[in-house]
């Protein structure tokens, strides 16, 4: 590869492009998709522990409500809202709307801000009701 790159141009990658909010949403959609895969395995473990027995459930609940567990669950919540909102943004594109630069930039900021606001709202509700 190294002698090839000296003679032939390679397609630019992440470290080459100037960072924009639209680029951020594009790559983050994939990253959050992968994070949700892992997060849904956590949901599966939670359900399986409840089906297994009292001790298994208590262990899983203790790990999930530990400070580290809560940080992971907070991240899972944000990944879910981001992927959900950006997925809706993709549906709008699929329908043929929102392709202009101002529209795609605006919707990208909407996804970033909306996902953060919804995540904070959900966790504020969790702590106010003492749910976890």
């Amino acid at each position, binding site marked *: 590869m190294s002698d090839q790159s000296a003679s032939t141009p390679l397609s630019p990658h992440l470290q080459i492009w100037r960072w924009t909010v639209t680029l951020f949403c594009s790559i983050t959609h994939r990253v959050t998709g992968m994070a949700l895969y892992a997060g849904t395995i956590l949901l599966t473990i939670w359900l*399986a522990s409840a089906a297994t027995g009292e001790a298994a459930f208590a262990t899983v609940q203790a790990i999930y409500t530990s400070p580290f567990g809560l940080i992971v669950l907070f991240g899972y919540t944000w990944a879910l809202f981001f992927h959900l909102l950006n997925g809706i943004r993709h549906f709008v594109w699929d329908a043929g709307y929102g392709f202009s630069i101002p529209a795609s930039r605006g919707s990208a900021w909407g996804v970033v801000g909306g996902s953060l606001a919804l995540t904070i709202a959900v966790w504020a509700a969790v702590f106010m009701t003492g*749910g976890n």
Partner: protein
Amino acid sequence: MAKHGTAHFIAQRITALALVPLAIWFVFALLSHGGDTRADLMEWIAGHPWSVAIPLAMLVLVGFYHMRIGLEVIIDDYIHKPDLRGMLHFLNTFVALVAGAIALWSIIAITLIA
């Protein structure tokens, strides 16, 4: 699903569409039941087959299918060594199937135990 682009695109969109209401329902449901005791959680799932157990089963089954085909595209895009790519495709399908089976079994088991 290489060389089956249209079917892949449609499957991705249909599962995505189904997951929008399921994901929103799930977040709100967890607000009230995320901190449940085991007995409360089991009663909630077993006591509401149509409004909890089945949506929950759909969420994990449609979810794992959506994740499998989504990760498939990511593997195709970034992994260029044929052997490694083939192995990751197998692993992706395997994990999604096993996790989906465990989740479905758990929901059924909870329904039967409670």
